[in-house]
């Protein structure tokens, strides 16, 4: 009897251990954006799909800080990079040199990811050494001036095409307690994007030209753009607290009719349409005069493309699996962006079509073949000194308290 009980007990324990092992999931840490609907919806969708395709994998999310890569660099410096992490151009060179970024060529082929990437995106996905370091999901993205038409109509104003017209609108709006252009200048990229939309009226390469080395900060166009931005700031086009306003505050102002214009990427189309319906549209960036407005109507800020997306830590104990998951997540992001966020500007051809695109997105898609030039967002710049300095410089200009000369001199020093 005792023997029988012993055998039975051992059998029960073995079965228990076996089932525990079978249920054990592999946890992968992922560092990615999870801040608003445009980042939460695709992530949640991808996690849901991952649970079906990889039931043995569990993701542990570390939400990405809006700090221009500072946290990621700190993690890299300490050798604590997560298994999968979202990366931008600025840090790719550093991390690939330090061998903290896995070469994903084989996985991209094996998973079929490479075949699904749009040809226009492949040039950005493949680095100058011929390797793939990140699985992209975002396609070419653009800086848009969003306009609340209802506010312009309410105060009998025309949509401005020149800075003088914009200043005239600001006088009326300010008198009625409305902010003309709401920016979240606390984030350097948003301030830099504002400057870039002005710089592209003089130099179509905008801030990307300096990154590429095709233009110089001492070029006259950059100085004139700086002067224009100071002029707009001093005329009260932006809110007083522009350099300390965050995204939530700036967006709320626009969506609640307290601001007539808003500057953001095209990913904001969905949220703006939901809140303001047909009243919201995007416009060609105003310029310093009518002729230049017409001439540069199709020159856009942003859109340049860059090496970005989900990268993998080669020191991860599950690096191969993490790479597969990163490819999977990126592809599912694209699906979610197309179907749930009405944003077809993605890196991967998902085979899905969305015929319910908001009008603003339809207009943008129609505009794309006419675009004469594009630039880059700050996270698409490879020179980290430049991408950081231009954000600070643009904030100085937006405050209206620095002269254009002061700011350009500082930039000359930074780039020396």
């Amino acid at each position, binding site marked *: 009897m005792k023997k029988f009980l012993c055998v039975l007990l051992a059998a029960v324990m073995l079965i228990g251990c076996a089932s525990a092992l079978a249920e054990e999931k592999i946890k992968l840490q992922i560092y990615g954006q999870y801040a608003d609907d445009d980042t939460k919806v695709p992530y949640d969708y991808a996690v849901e799909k991952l649970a079906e395709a990889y039931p043995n994998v569990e993701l542990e999310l570390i939400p990405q800080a809006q*700090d*221009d*890569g*500072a*946290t990621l*660099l*700190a993690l*890299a*410096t300490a050798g604590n990079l997560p298994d999968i992490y979202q990366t931008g151009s*600025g*840090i790719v060179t*550093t*991390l690939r*040199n*330090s061998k*903290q970024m896995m070469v994903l060529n084989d996985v991209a082929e094996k998973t079929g990811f490479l075949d699904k990437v749009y040809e226009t995106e492949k040039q950005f996905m493949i680095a100058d050494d011929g390797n793939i370091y990140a699985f992209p999901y975002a396609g070419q993205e653009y800086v848009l001036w969003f306009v609340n038409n209802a506010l312009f109509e309410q105060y009998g104003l025309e949509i401005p095409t020149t800075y003088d017209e914009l200043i005239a609108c600001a006088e009326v709006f300010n008198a009625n307690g409305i*902010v003309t252009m709401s920016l979240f200048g*606390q984030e*350097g990229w948003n301030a830099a994007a504002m400057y870039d939309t002005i710089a592209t009226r003089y130099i179509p390469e905008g801030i990307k030209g300096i990154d590429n080395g095709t233009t110089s900060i001492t070029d006259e166009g950059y100085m004139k753009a700086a002067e224009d931005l100071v002029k707009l700031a001093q005329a009260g086009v932006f*809110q*007083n*607290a*522009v*350099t*300390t*306003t965050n995204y939530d505050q700036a967006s709320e102002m626009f969506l609640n009719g307290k601001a007539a214009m808003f500057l953001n990427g095209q990913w904001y189309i969905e949220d703006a349409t939901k809140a303001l319906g047909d009243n919201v549209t995007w416009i060609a960036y105003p310029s310093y005069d009518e002729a230049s407005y017409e001439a540069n109507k199709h020159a856009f800020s942003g859109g340049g493309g860059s090496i970005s997306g989900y990268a993998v830590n080669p020191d991860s104990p599950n690096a191969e699996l993490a790479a597969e998951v990163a490819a999977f997540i990126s592809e599912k992001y694209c699906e979610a962006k197309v179907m749930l966020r009405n944003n077809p500007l993605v890196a991967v051809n998902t085979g899905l079509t969305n015929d319910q695109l908001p009008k603003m997105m339809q207009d943008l898609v129609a505009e794309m073949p006419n675009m004469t030039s594009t630039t880059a967002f700050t996270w698409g710049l490879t020179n*980290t*000194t430049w991408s*950081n*300095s231009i954000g*600070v*410089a643009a*904030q*100085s200009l*937006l*405050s209206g*308290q*620095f002269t254009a000369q002061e*700011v350009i001199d*500082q930039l000359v*020093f930074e780039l020396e």
Partner: protein
Amino acid sequence: MKKYLSNKKAIVVFVLPAVILFLTFIFIPILQVFYYSFFKWDGVNQATFIGLDNYIRLIGKDPTFKIANANGFKFGLVITVYQLVLATIFAIAVSDKRIRFRKFFRTAYFIPVVLSVTVVCQLWGNVFNADNGLLNTLMKTLGIEWSQNWLNDRNTAIYTVAFVNAWQWMGYQFALIVAGIKSIGEDFYEAAEIDGATALKAHWFITLPLLKDTFNFCLLISVTGGIKAFAEIDIMTGGGPGNATNTLTYIMYNHAFGRQNFGYGLTSASVLVMECLVIILVLNWLFKDRETPLFARKKGVDLV
């Protein structure tokens, strides 16, 4: 006790853990900061030795260096004046047994210290918001035409941020001074009373001089706290507008983590360490036991 103190092995055993911890977590990292300040380094890859180039650029050419030092001085000045003066007044007040609700005030003054810096900055950020902040709205409601761009003015933003720091940490200095006052014997005050000294004179000639060491410590905290200010600046102004609220610590952070230029960032940190050391030496010299006007221990001073 004497037996232990004369035993060198016992001294080594008791002191060694603290020395090892200090060397590992304080001294060696500080040496590394100085070492890497002579390199061009992105924080991850191989560093390249460049001698004094970082120092020449930072001290000799970078316009932000001058601004950062001036900001450190302004920040230190605001928090020193605010914290030391108010903390001393409040501490003397709550130490007086005639004051009612002393326990409540003692707790109330200390509450901001236990709050998170982020919470405090969000709170004051909303108060100081130029567009819809509490302060400007209040002034507007009261018909006072003095709305300010508290956090976005290149000339005054540093004072606003310094005020927030001073507000939060005043309670800490208050606690130190209260503890200092408690350690002063009652007999001093009784003797002063017999001599006919007023409460004000008693505090001037007894409390303040006997708090000298406490003041030395408080001053060290606030002055060095000023030149190494970071958290409030990062949260409330991001060093801006432009570089108007940069400090040496902010330069260090921005160059190291924002531009992947750790060498330059650590140069700023090295200068900061040296500045703090100089300040400590100067303050210790100023507070050295000797006859000074403020802390004079005059023989036979007339307290009446």
